[in-house]
């Protein structure tokens, strides 16, 4: 993660020069910021203040324990049970279930809707359009889900996760350090990462690499060493 970004604490006043001021779009506030009328912007969480001058938006990047759902997030939900029109899914343990309509799946009609069993995983943005059940079709590898922290999941989901997020384990495992392991992943913003591969050994190695990078807060060099060690132990 870039370290030159300003750190803010809850209730602090934000330096006016940091607030983007584009005339094209209205200013948009993301997680961790609150607008107090008429013109105060107050952080409600401790973390890094991130601004995007092009989209005229700002938010705070921080690592919390509980997932707060928000619109448009890609998440890995677990089917709890089915009701008449929708599935009830859990996003995180010990929280109220979320609903996922049967007709939200791509080209689903009343007759062709997918039948999902309790316990199955679904990648979804609230509408399962273009996404859907994970690792359940007979030929495909079942894979496994690993829990990571929310901040780490967000870093993995960044468009340039290696440069901006500072996460290179996945690339390393698939690249020359990892000897070109073949696997696929699906990251949910609710802190769950699904890893699928033909070989169970690869799934375990990828899952451990992700969890240990997250727990240890490893930098690039640490990640490279971890990947080399895990791949060496695997053989």
């Amino acid at each position, binding site marked *: 993660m870039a370290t030159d970004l300003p750190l803010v604490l809850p209730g602090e006043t934000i330096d006016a020069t940091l607030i983007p001021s584009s005339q094209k779009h209205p200013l948009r506030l993301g997680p961790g910021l609150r607008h107090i009328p008429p013109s105060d912007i107050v952080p409600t969480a401790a973390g890094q203040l991130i601004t995007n001058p092009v989209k005229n938006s700002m938010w705070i990047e921080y690592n919390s324990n509980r997932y707060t759902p928000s619109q448009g997030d890609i998440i890995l939900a677990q089917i709890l049970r089915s009701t008449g029109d929708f599935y009830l899914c859990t996003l995180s343990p*010990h929280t109220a279930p979320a609903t996922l309509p049967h007709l939200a799946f791509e080209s689903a009609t009343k007759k062709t809707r997918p039948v999902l069993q309790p316990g*199955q995983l679904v990648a979804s943005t609230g509408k399962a359009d273009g996404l859907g059940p994970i690792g359940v079709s007979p030929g495909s590898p079942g894979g496994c889900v690993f829990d990571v922290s929310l901040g780490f999941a967000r870093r993995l989901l960044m468009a340039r996760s290696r440069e901006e997020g500072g996460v290179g384990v996945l690339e390393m495992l698939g690249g020359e350090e990892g000897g070109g392991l073949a696997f696929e992943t699906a990251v949910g913003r609710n802190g769950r990462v699904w890893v699928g591969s033909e070989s169970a050994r690869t799934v*375990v190695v990828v899952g451990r690499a992700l969890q240990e990078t997250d727990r240890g807060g490893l930098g690039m060099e640490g990640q490279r060493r971890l990947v080399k060690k*895990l791949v060496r132990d695997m053989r």
Partner: protein
Amino acid sequence: MPREAEPSLNEKQFVTQALQENLRLDGREFDQYRPIELNFGDQHGVADVTLGKTRVLAKATAEVTVPYTDRPLDGIFTIATELSPMTSPSFEVNRPTETEVLLSRLLEKTVRRSGALDTESLCLVAGEKCWSVRVDVHVLAHDGNLMDAACLAVVAALRHFRKPDTSMAGGVLTVYTPAEREPVPLSWLHSPFCVTWSFFGEDEGEMAVLDATWLEEQVRVGSCTVSLNKHGEICQIAKLGGTPVDAVALLQCTSVALTKVKEFSDLVDRRLAEDLKRRDKGGFMAELRAENDR
């Protein structure tokens, strides 16, 4: 009461599938424990055991009470187990779950019924006064294998505990404060430890795994807890439900359990010795120096 989150179908399938390929999700061997940490508190009788992400705290206390009328020559020894909502939101106060009942029963059988603590030594005046020793077990974090961690914590706490010294002179019982007389350790006879095996697979005890994590515990088809001391004397074997396990496999489990128990025993001995060294600053000579406070 929020229900405990079930693992997804993918996880359930994968754990068993990986075990069939001799793999565990955290890269351990089948008979390998997670790193065990044992720490003692500032007070005597407080032991904190960390087993991976599982954490259990045990605290031993003693007070003078009246013995039970049917056992006038014995002291009182109780183990109180509590799984609070801090462990997991699915545990509720004053409503014991199955896990909690099994945990306290197994601790009772392992430590109390095996005669690890000599309760007769707790008697002060026959039929009138005795020590009541109580161990409170608090589970601070639950990531599987509570049994082994809790048993280790209870044994370590009791061996670390010191009760106030007493004397009887002319029918008068005196309980000394720590300043008057050094508190004395309990009369401890042997140290039993629990080793829990989890079984996976269709066949009878096809795959046996030590120190299962919470995910593995949710997927397993059976489990067996063996309690024994380092001399190989078995205190109890609990195989509560689950799929049947081959007798030969069970015998093999107990022999591996013995090597693990020896390791636990060494760990407790070593940590107790380290703790004694830490408390004993300068030794006996430093205590006798003239410049000390009177």
